[in-house]
């Protein structure tokens, strides 16, 4: 039920990385509107579970309001940016160590992406209904004309976040039906809720994407170069060639 959308700008990326995940309140979870609704409806009823969820959502609403007051005009965009980051805890990665520079870079990229996948079941106004398409079976240069397509990046980030805690992620087969669905959504640029798909399904979809690249990841020339580097004698020479 996470909506990954973020405000663009340098400083917001930091807050995105430290991640304030939405507490999933009530049945709906997801967007702020729903939280408001659930707090209103549950305020009538009293009881153990109801009370806790009520207080949770109350907190949430308070936070929301404070944020709203801070930046009056462009409330929605900023709100979403503050509360719905690409959920990545520092502690989730590498068991407490700092993020690698690659991961950091990717997170920054993701945070500045205007149109990233996923939405809750309520495609309301602020979210785009259509997003970038990911083509299967075309060369990598064409897929990544500007950069990695947002939806694909989201898949990678989801793996980055959850896969280290699971076994045999790239070995175990994904759910065939869901894979087809996800690929269909990616190809057509439909919004998807990434939480509905298991890590194994996503891994299988990514594998399929890579497999469908006509010339492989490196392309024919790149592969040739790599093979040449393997055949070189000295380690220094190999290193220099790789870095050149």
């Amino acid at each position: 039920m996470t909506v990954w959308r973020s405000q663009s700008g340098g400083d917001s990326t930091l807050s995105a990385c430290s991640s304030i995940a939405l507490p999933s309140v009530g049945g709906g979870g997801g967007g702020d509107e729903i939280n408001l609704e659930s707090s209103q409806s549950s305020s009538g009823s009293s009881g153990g579970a109801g009370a806790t969820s009520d207080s949770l959502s109350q907190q949430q609403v308070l936070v929301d309001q404070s944020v709203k007051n801070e930046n009056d005009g462009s409330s929605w965009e900023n709100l979403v940016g503050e509360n719905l980051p690409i959920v990545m805890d520092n502690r989730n990665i590498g068991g407490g160590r700092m993020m690698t520079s690659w991961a950091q870079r990717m997170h920054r990229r993701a945070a500045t992406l205007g149109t990233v996948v996923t939405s809750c079941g309520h495609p309301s106004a602020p979210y785009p209904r259509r997003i970038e398409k990911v083509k299967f079976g075309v060369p990598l240069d064409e897929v990544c004309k500007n950069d990695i397509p947002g939806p694909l990046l989201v898949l990678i980030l989801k793996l980055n976040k959850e896969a280290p805690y699971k076994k045999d992620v790239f070995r175990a087969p994904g759910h065939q039906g869901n894979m087809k669905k996800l690929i269909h959504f990616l190809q057509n640029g439909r919004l998807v809720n990434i939480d509905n798909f298991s890590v194994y399904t996503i891994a299988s979809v990514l594998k399929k994407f890579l497999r469908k690249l006509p010339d492989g990841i490196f392309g024919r020339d790149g592969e040739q170069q790599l093979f040449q580097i393997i055949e070189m004698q000295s380690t220094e020479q190999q290193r220099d060639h790789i870095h050149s």
Partner: protein
Amino acid sequence: MLANGNQNLAAAATTPYKIMLVGDGMVGKTAICKSYIRKTPYLSYQPTISETHEITVSIYKNDYVVILWDTNAGEEWNHLRIRDYNNTDCFILCYAIDNPTSLSNVETKWVPELNQYCPNVPILLVGTKTDIRTPSNRWISEEEGDALKVKVKAEAYIECSSKSIASIEGVLMRAVSIAEKYRQWKTQSSSRRLCTIL
């Protein structure tokens, strides 16, 4: 005794049955194979690419020579696996009872694939890893397996655990009897077809 020996010879003289293990990855196809051959539970895990084992299965003192094909499950090996399919007498289609994904893939992936490349070849549906089923956990039940059997038109449904050799033997005996029936049906239907042409 003599009659028995003759029967044995007759069984051995026919071409060995080709039985193929298919199913999702990590459900225990190799475990079925190796446990039967070694007669001890096979517990290590190593992804297979493609292996064949020649084994003998005895049913009612008749020995049947079976070539058991252990396949890989990955989609990246699809084209390789499909080439091995022809002339199979029986497919052992496995799913793990602790893995609902493998159950649904039986329906969405494996059965369509088998029906496409080997129509009419009988399928024996097998639920593996029954040793982990306890009354408390709610893994895929036997009834669900039976329902799936009907749905995908498999010949039979049977459960096994690689930790009990008896259940593995049961699976293979069942597979062989299905394969034998299929052979008979095939020769009958082919001779019938011949007659109609003549």
